[in-house]
């Protein structure tokens, strides 16, 4: 009973109703099953520069690594996670260096930075890596769990028990990040792994969604949409209806069973068992 997973993706980024420019950014590589989302910061148009540079760097680095195992690893590898998860973290370390060096070489861009949340799926294993307060959620069998821990001041305070989650949601300090890509020469990247199941939903999103739409609302949209793209569109619309104070970006992944002929299955089975 080995299901072959098919990942259906939908995504959207939106200015929101208050901001003048969209500093969010996302990119998807369907052939690699690599999904990256970022939320930039820094005045003028520099947040956009940071988020786009980070997303592009992550994609390029992972593609290179797929083609050549000799691609150097940036940052420290962890024995707790697989090679692919370490590669994803390496990509964010490289993105950090690139954003930091770009900012350092241009006085006007000093201090720009970005969040990054990235998911890479290898048959059944989901690799996750993130920095900042963009999130990954897993909706499985009706219950939704946040897979990422926000690197924000309020979230860190909740974790050590100084603030309640309710106080954190009401806090004016929500935007204070404790980690970001590109603001320092080095950065600590968090990683996680999950085994995916048919019926799972994975959501990557910027805080423009999660500050406007509650977790149960998000779950009900995911469960009642006809497609991943419809979910993504409805989530963005809902965030805008609720105020849309920030840029909103979402990537929705639906895990379905791959429909294949018995012949194809046998071929794959032979490859797996070889």
């Amino acid at each position: 009973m080995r299901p072959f997973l098919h990942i259906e993706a939908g995504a959207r980024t939106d200015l929101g109703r208050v901001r003048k420019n969209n500093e969010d950014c996302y990119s998807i590589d369907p052939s690699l099953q690599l999904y990256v989302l970022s939320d930039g910061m820094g005045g003028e148009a520099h947040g956009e520069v940071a988020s786009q540079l980070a997303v592009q760097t992550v994609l390029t680095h992972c593609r290179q690594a797929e083609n050549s195992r000799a691609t150097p690893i940036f940052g420290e590898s962890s024995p707790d996670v697989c090679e692919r998860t370490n590669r994803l973290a390496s990509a964010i370390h490289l993105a950090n260096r690139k954003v930091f060096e770009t900012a350092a070489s241009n006085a006007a861009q000093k201090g720009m930075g970005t969040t990054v949340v990235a998911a890479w799926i290898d048959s059944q294993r989901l690799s996750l890596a993130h920095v900042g307060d963009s999130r990954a959620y897993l909706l499985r069998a009706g219950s939704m769990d946040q897979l990422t821990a926000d690197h924000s001041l309020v979230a860190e305070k909740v974790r050590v028990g100084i603030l309640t989650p309710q106080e954190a949601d009401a806090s004016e300090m929500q935007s204070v990040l404790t980690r970001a890509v590109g603001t320092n020469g080095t950065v600590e990247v968090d990683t996680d792994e999950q085994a995916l199941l048919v019926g799972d939903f994975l959501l990557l999103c910027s805080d423009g969604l999660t500050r406007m739409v509650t977790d149960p609302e998000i779950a009900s949209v995911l469960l009642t949409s006809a497609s991943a793209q419809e979910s993504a569109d409805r989530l963005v619309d809902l965030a805008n209806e609720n105020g849309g104070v920030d840029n909103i970006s979402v990537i929705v992944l639906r895990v379905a069973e791959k429909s294949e002929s018995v012949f194809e299955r046998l071929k794959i089975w032979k490859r797996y068992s070889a």
Partner: protein
Amino acid sequence: MSRLVLKFEHAVMKEVPLGTRPVTIGRAPDNDIQIDNLAVSNYHARVYLEAGSLVVEDLNSLNGSFLNDIRIERAMLKDGDSILIGKHEILVDQLNDAVQPQESWRKAPVPRVNETMILDTQQRRMLLDAAVAAGERSQLSPDRLRVPTLIVISGRTDEKEYRIAGKLTVIGSSKLATVRLRGWLTPDVAAQINKHDDGYYLGRGDRVPKINGISISGLTKLNDGDVIEVGRVRLNFLYRE
């Protein structure tokens, strides 16, 4: 007079004097030292005198007996040795008989409440809760390395014991699985364990696992000594030092 001292998380729970008769250790109630824990076999080990030497012998137990952290089948004991069975420690206290009267002469006899202690369910629960709390504290201290371990109590798996390493531990028939389930129609991913900063969490897969007999409703933190049930497989989650 020599004795064996049973300890659980540093608390003395029972003392047994060593005589000519062997002292048996196990989960069954007719043992001299009964340890009511699923990680302990019914007749797990015994300690006896042989030609003047004290000997510990493992009785082919499932999870083994450890002497000073080394798994043994049979070994000679000396004063101060520590036998580990499941989560319980048995200390060897070989007092020199000649010294004994002098000791009791110097000190007023201290009443030992532990000597007659019987472990009823409630006491055990209290001790376990205290141990869990102590365990959580000690996990935070960096000087003690505790290895999370899954011990198979029953069911068809590829190993009898698994050390958990890494962020993701899959229980199922999948290629990703650390705990590989055997048999027909076993789910690919029956359940999974994720490592978080503050400990290990059990989550559902194609099955809803139980912890200590209760079905989980979402990611649930695992405590030292928990019994996990996934389908027909039962696993004991333990932190080993």
